[in-house]
């Protein structure tokens, strides 16, 4: 990872510390004992399916909701109870929330005028930030005269012009089409590096989170399941949910037994031991690229786990070949990917699927 120059204090210090945050709406717990620390200049993503509490957490940080209990520290000071206009934090809204009755330029200048900055400074800073997002030529337009992508940039410019300590982004790319979304992911990352502000982005799109973020918190049902770098999340998911949410994963359901996992109908699959207690429900998880197909006459190595299977479909997806197989006695499809451009495997053919014992993980259900 690239070493960043320190912004304020030392680079390992935390800008945001969320400590045991709980948020209840009536009897529903939207946040259930959430604790996360976010570093200076970090691009941090809150990732999870809808209703997991990620947007609630973001709104608590912005001051639009108040936590029921727990602390939200910004530079070591508790923000709980303070209003949105009292926090050095700005939000980019999912709907962009541009002021429809103001020109682009006035939308961006709004926050600086609220601070009663000198006119010359406002002019310079607004022009500068509009230049950064490439919209200086559209300053005179009204929001309804802009395309979706342009509006997104205005919202971004308006949120960063005040140079907040932290920028909160609520599904910033959800309203864009697929192609533009890909470009903006890189653009956001470049901009974050350029302005040196801590970004906290909420997204339900795992690819978006992995592409942009330095670290990702995976959430479900108000709880944080894992906080890690994208690589760690991919290579060492904490449990079945994280593994299924991040990338593609094959699972074999079973029960933890001494020396491996007792898989339904298969007997013991010897695999890397985990810290799960014997007898607990668990999954054996194998990434599609970690598995190989062995044709007739190819012998497995001693480090391999092998299971018999039948080929169901072979799909060429550009950079790789995906082979869908069905393990004997297991209902779910198992996917094996290979970057060899070989589509000669026959549907219906019997094969052995093999993976190195060390590449499979035993994950809690």
């Amino acid at each position: 990872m690239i070493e960043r120059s320190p912004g304020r204090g030392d680079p390992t210090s935390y800008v945001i510390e969320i400590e045991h945050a709980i948020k209840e709406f009536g009897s529903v717990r939207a946040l259930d004992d959430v604790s996360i620390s976010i570093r200076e200049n970090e691009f941090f993503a809150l990732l999870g399916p809808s209703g997991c509490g990620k947007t609630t957490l973001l709104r608590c940080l912005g001051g639009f909701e108040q936590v029921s209990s727990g602390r939200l520290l910004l530079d070591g000071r508790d923000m709980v109870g303070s209003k949105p206009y009292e926090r050095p934090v700005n939000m980019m809204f999912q709907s962009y929330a541009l002021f429809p009755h103001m020109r682009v330029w006035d939308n961006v200048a709004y926050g600086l005028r609220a601070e009663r900055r000198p006119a010359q400074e406002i002019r310079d800073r607004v022009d500068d930030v509009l230049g950064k997002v490439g919209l200086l030529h559209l300053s005179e337009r009204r929001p309804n005269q802009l395309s979706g992508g342009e509006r997104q940039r205005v919202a971004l410019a308006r949120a960063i012009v005040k140079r907040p300590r932290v920028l909160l982004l609520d599904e910033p790319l959800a309203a864009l089409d697929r192609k533009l979304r890909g470009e903006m992911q890189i653009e956001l990352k470049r901009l974050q590096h350029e302005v040196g502000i801590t970004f906290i982005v909420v997204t339900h799109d795992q690819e978006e989170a992995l592409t942009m973020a330095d670290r990702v918190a995976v959430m479900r049902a108000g709880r944080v399941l894992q906080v890690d770098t994208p690589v760690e999340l991919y290579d060492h998911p904490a449990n079945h949910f994280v593994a299924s949410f991040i990338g593609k994963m094959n699972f074999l359901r079973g029960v933890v037994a001494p020396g491996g996992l007792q898989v339904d109908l298969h007997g013991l699959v010897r695999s890397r031991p985990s810290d799960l207690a014997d007898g607990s429900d668990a999954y054996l998880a194998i990434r599609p690229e970690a598995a190989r197909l062995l044709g007739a006459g190819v012998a497995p190595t001693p480090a391999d786990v092998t299971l018999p299977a039948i080929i169901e479909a072979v799909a060429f997806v550009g950079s790789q070949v995906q082979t869908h197989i069905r393990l004997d006695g297991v209902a779910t499809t198992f996917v094996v990917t290979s970057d060899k451009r070989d589509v000669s495997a026959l549907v219906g053919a019997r094969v052995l699927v093999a993976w190195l014992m060390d590449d499979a993980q035993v994950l809690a259900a």
Partner: protein
Amino acid sequence: MRESRAGTARWLRIHMTLLYAFLYLPLVVLVVLSFNDAQRAVVSWRGFTTRWYGAVFENPELLGALGTTMVIAAMATTISVALGTLLALGLERHTRSSVLDSAVYFPLLVPDIVLGIALLSFYSLIRLPLGAGSIVLAHSVWGIAFAAAIVRTRLRGFDRSIEEASLDLGVREVPTFFRITLPVILPGIVSAALVVFTLSVDEFVIAYFTAGRTVTFPIQVYSMIRFGVTPEINAVATLLLGFSMVLIVVALLVNRGRTTSDPRPPEGATG
């Protein structure tokens, strides 16, 4: 087959023509007769004149009543729009009771005569002196309901995150209302004001009950008409017609022309 369809179309066109004639012919006759150079408002055409319009502007009683009506309408409009807007905001954002919600519009459905009697009884009961003040209050009763209904349609497409964005950018709640909320719903408020003003100017029944000795414009016209429909009355009515139409058309244009929040929601955006 084709011929019968053409036949149906012709019948529909005749039907439509008759219907529109039924709706608008009386008004056309009224306007035409206001330019008739005849002493009494007879149906025979005696040549073009604008003298009846001149007579209207030289009638001190009529002008006095018109002045009274304008003041009453202006005051009733101010009260109605201010309270109606707040009511609309409250209903749109905080009411969970659908009964309370629909109860707001009930005064609009109550027959004028019933409302007139009710207000007269009530004002007598609380010993409110009848006059211009009581008419203002009476007109505000349905004026508030009207204003609330019109402003509310404007609020329906209102994206509340723009208010949150304003708070987020460092502006407190009250200035946010004046800099963001109010400008965005202003077309609805202006439209409500024009409609309430128009309705107040030509409202007769409720004013008649609650006027005491005050003479409003419609009451003055009514007292003139008891001595027969004169061309002067036709001229007055034509002026009132033109005035109402201009205000209503302006109200419609204002409310339609400037868009509130973005008309196009961002594609694929969900909560």
